[in-house]
């Protein structure tokens, strides 16, 4: 051992000390109180060769240990003689692109707009009304959003942690070009290709004035901002109108489908099932393996996964618009959801029609909520008697709010104290059993009790 200088061991010990960082529970080394250090050292050597961590506690016979050593050596041989890495160009059709920041790999594919995803061909995009996206999202700034002039974007990254250590190694962008939907995938074959990739991507993106993503607001866009910053550039689409389809998708379909992950929507709405698709959580490791071994077999699946994500994104965007325009929903849960979406967009007549349709489709868990929304609209519109009837119906369907509103209506508007008390009593029957179990029930019960006291006092005063 080299004598330390200034209390710190010498540089040449660094490698040794780094090795110890790896295996912190090594048994003692050096001339300590080790008995028969010779035997101990040999055993350690064997363990190292076997790749075992020390302290496994197992005591093997010499024969068993030798057998193990031989077996391990054999495996290592096979690994080395394994299949040779398959280069990228053999599995993915693309080209090397060079620009002033270097080079990267670009893949371009296209599908015909007439191809159907589920029932709907992508060509439907031409028939979408300019106001639809604004309605879909209830965001007035997205009024006039034209999917034909939008870029559909999805990234594959080295992790979900966010932060500056996460890179987007594959960025896919799709858009309508003539009678096709073209997907361009920008790929960095190694980290030093990122600058060139982003440069080319920026040039491509400047011609778009709207962006469509799936969860891009929380993930893809902030990530691209970071990557551009780190490469001394600027993300060209900041400030552009952005349709993040995740939120409208949830509003339209979560009531029925529960999972609104892109692949669940694909399957549930368009009947598409992917085969041999690579799970998202494995993707970062695929890229790490690729940069080390340059074997494209798993990587090719990532390209396909990304391409499919973008095409599905476009198809879903078209489908969502169509739903809003044509009222295609049939399941009462979908109809109710659609009604909510229309209501948020202030299309009250249409939304009311959808609520009614939901009711007509028969009893269900959403009957009560549908009645409530209709009642609210009636009240807003000044149609109090109609509202009252709807509150009562909602109450019968189990909605406490219905009884509460009805009670208020009778107390303050219709001035019918008996009816009001009846409504209060019905309401209490619903929440009283729950009052100790959750705060909301407790509040509602107390509210009813107060109202009841007040009504009784009023009635007594009137002498009725």
């Amino acid at each position, binding site marked *: 051992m080299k004598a330390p200088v200034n209390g710190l061991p010498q540089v040449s010990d660094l490698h040794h000390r780094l090795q110890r960082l790896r295996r912190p529970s090594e048994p*003692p080394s050096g001339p300590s109180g080790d008995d028969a250090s010779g035997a101990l050292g040999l055993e350690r050597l064997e363990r190292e060769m076997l790749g075992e961590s020390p302290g496994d506690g197992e005591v093997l016979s010499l024969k068993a240990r030798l057998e193990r050593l031989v077996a391990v050596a054999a495996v290592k041989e096979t690994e080395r003689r394994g299949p040779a890495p398959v280069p990228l160009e053999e599995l993915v059709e693309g080209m090397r692109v060079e620009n002033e920041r270097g080079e990267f790999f670009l893949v371009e594919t296209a599908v015909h707009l007439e191809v159907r995803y589920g029932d709907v061909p992508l060509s439907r995009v031409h028939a979408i009304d300019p106001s639809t996206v604004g309605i879909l999202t209830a965001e007035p700034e997205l009024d006039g959003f034209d999917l034909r002039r939008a870029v559909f974007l999805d990234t594959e990254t080295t992790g979900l942690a966010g932060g*500056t250590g996460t890179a987007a190694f594959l960025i896919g962008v799709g858009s309508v070009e003539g009678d096709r939907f073209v997907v361009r995938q920008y790929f960095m074959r190694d*980290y*030093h290709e990122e600058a060139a990739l982003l440069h080319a991507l920026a040039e491509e993106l400047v011609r778009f004035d709207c962006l469509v993503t799936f969860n891009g607001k929380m993930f893809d866009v902030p990530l691209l*901002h970071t990557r551009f910053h780190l490469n001394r550039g600027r993300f060209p689409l900041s400030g552009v109108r952005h349709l993040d389809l995740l939120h409208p998708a949830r509003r339209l379909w979560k009531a029925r489908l529960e999972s609104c992950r892109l692949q669940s929507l694909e399957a549930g709405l368009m009947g598409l099932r992917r085969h041999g698709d690579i799970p998202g959580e494995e993707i970062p490791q695929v890229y790490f393996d690729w*940069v080390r071994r340059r074997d494209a077999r798993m990587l090719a699946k990532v390209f396909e996964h990304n391409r499919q994500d973008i095409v599905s994104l476009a198809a879903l965007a078209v489908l969502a618009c169509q739903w809003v325009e044509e009222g295609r929903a049939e399941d009462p849960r979908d109809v109710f959801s659609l009604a909510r979406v229309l209501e948020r967009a202030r299309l009250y007549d249409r939304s009311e029609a959808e609520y009614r349709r939901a009711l007509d489709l028969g009893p269900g868990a959403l009957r009560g909520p549908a009645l409530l929304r209709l009642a609210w609209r009636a009240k807003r519109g000044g149609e109090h008697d109609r509202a009252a009837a709807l509150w009562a119906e909602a109450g019968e369907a189990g909605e406490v709010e219905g009884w509460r509103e009805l009670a208020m209506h009778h107390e303050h508007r219709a001035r019918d104290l008996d009816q009001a008390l009846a409504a209060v009593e019905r309401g209490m029957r619903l929440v009283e059993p729950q009052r100790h179990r959750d705060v909301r029930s407790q509040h509602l019960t107390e509210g009813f009790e107060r109202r009841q006291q007040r009504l009784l006092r009023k009635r007594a005063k009137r002498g009725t």
Partner: protein
Amino acid sequence: MSHPLALTRSDNEGALLSVLKGLEIQKTLGTDPVLTALRHFPAQPAQVADFPEGLHPKLRETLLGRGYQGLYTHQREAYEQVQAGKDVVVVTPTASGKTLCYNLPVLDLILKDPDARALYLFPTKALAQDQLAELHGVIEAIGADIGTFTYDGDTPQDARKAIRARAHVVVTNPDMLHKGILPHHTKWVKLLENLRYVVVDELHSLRGVYGSHVTNIFRRLRRLCEFYGSRPQFICSSATIGNPRELAEALTEREMTLVDRSGAPRGERYFAIYNPPVVNRQLGIRKSALNSARDVSLSFLSKGLQTIVFAPSRLATEILVTYLKEALEAKPGSEGIIRGYRGGYLPLKRREIERGLREGSVLGVVSTNALELGIDIGSLDAAVLVGYPGSVASAWQQAGRAGRRTGTSVAVLVANSTPLNQFIAKNPDYFFGAPVEQGRINPDNLQILVNHIKCAAFELPFVGDEPFGRENLLEILKYLEEEKLLHRAGDRWHWTSDSYPADAVSLRSVSSDNFVIQDVTREPRIVAEVDYDSAPSMVHEKAIYILEGRTYFVEKYDHEERRVEIREAEVDYYTDAITYTKVRILERFAEEPRANGRRNHGEVHVASQVVGFKKIKFHTNENVGSGELVMPENEMHTTAYWLTVPREIMQALPFSLEERRDGVVALSYTLGQLAALFLMCDRHDLGVALGDNGQGEARIERGLLRLGAGRGGRRGDDPPPGDDYEPNVFVYDAYPGGIGLSEPLYRLHDRLLAESRSLIAACPCTDGCPSCVGPAGEVGSNGKAVAMAILDAVLHPRNPSRADSEGSVR
């Protein structure tokens, strides 16, 4: 709003002096007075300077409006040095207006250049809140639009974006910088591109492992600033330590200018050292420091003097709170005038107590060193220190909590029975003249450095021959590449893992998980927290847990869930855990025969485990029972110095095997105490353990009471050392990876042994006492003699007969 019992200022001096007088005339059996020292420090008037010429007029106006007629000299000096482009460290006592030393240049610059940005770093959130409030006050008075915000774990998500965009001054702590800001630096472009000042408060607390981490965080910050084209100046503020400039330079890796002549006024101060009276001369036993401190504190408190008592452990804190409450809160309406304070209390409660102290509704507080740092608690009349807190710096800081700008104050250090404390009590000049301890860090501790290199690579790929730290960076990068964490492309090293490296690094301890303490007496509710490392010894099953004077029984200890359940219990005893420590040698850096022994230092593996507990009666401190426990082991790698006593020497001693074993325990006690003294480090920075070369490794408890009947008790599976006993006495760095204490100790070996021998020989006790080798009951009736014999044999060439005759000197 002051407490009815509290006196007005003019009465204070009289009351304080009368208490001191009372202490002075107290005597003990025999002739030793209890006050072994009473020093007087005269008041210091203020030294004032004009406002600097170039100061922004609005700032000058505001300060005048707030009653400032000028600046203290050190405030002016700090401002000038910062204007001259220097990196500055300001060292002045508490309440000397050090915040203005950094607020002034920062606000001045922002007023002149609204694009300028500053980063303020405080070690705790409580301090950050305190200082932020003050900053806000000044800014409001100026009336300018300067955004200052805290950015830490509690900042709500929707506020974070706004803060990034609008804050001129971002107030945060090293942990948040490490986890929440640096790895997301692209969101902080405005701050980093325009960063002009980094303010580091309480610099002295950035020592040891924590300081080593922070140095690396600063390396990462400076690296990012370079990427964004800025080069901020560091303005640091520190309490008194032996080497503030050196520490600041080590932390920031910049040349530092020191500003340390305080111009702030200081009231008159008295500092007394109190040695509890001897109650049993033959056994050398003194009245316990805890009980003496209680009596001294009561003398102050009963006269309405606001007093802070610093206790050496959480347990001692709670016991003392119990005693003081018993004495003073008997009257109705007097509840809450005595409070306890420690880190494990919930934040809301701590804020309440701090406020109570400032406003005067809290008369007395018993605290761990948690209140040592600069949280504003107003000016107190007296400070009582239960035992020497382990470093001269801490002692002065604790004493400094009494008396701020004007008026008289008193600090009393109550010595306990340990050799260290007794040494100070008998040699007060040593304490008053002692150089204050140095702050030490080891930022290139490999475990720490490598973790931060991972974080740095995550933040920005390493390029070519970029420097980072003082080890061979290239080799470390290659090592990380082998670990599949980095990938080299061209001349850059990229992070290739989907994990977030900052999550794996805890800045303060091995694990960052706190245990939650839940009171299940009625509705379960969380009442306190305890850190991971302390949990097994503080809240093991069947422990008595004390919180603000109330006792609880620990019913359940769930290590996996990090949760402990306690229930109120009326008990008359408390518990103290017994820890076994085992040390294994991993690597020897150096070894050498010295006289007849051997000195060594190197890397070791330390495993400690709580194996049982004692039950101790309140007030009388009688041992009334014990219990066994099976608790998880705590392990770490660190560096150590150790003494090896050769087998031949041990065998030649004229004592039985058991006596020889006890003698080694006795010796280790003394060595541990004096090591801290000579290293001028905090006693808690070191750990002591024993080993046995004759068996490869052996376990022994850390010099405290043994379990079970009699003195031979050991854990069942652990054979005691046999005749081939060759003891290793380890003194190790109490931090993973070590912080550089072992090598100096290795060099001090000769002096350490010689002084130990002198101390033991000069001690007037017969069989050993806490002032030399440990209480006789714990080291055997011959522990002292054997320890001396060992030292003689090791220090002097072959003289067994001499050892024998020395051993019988009384």
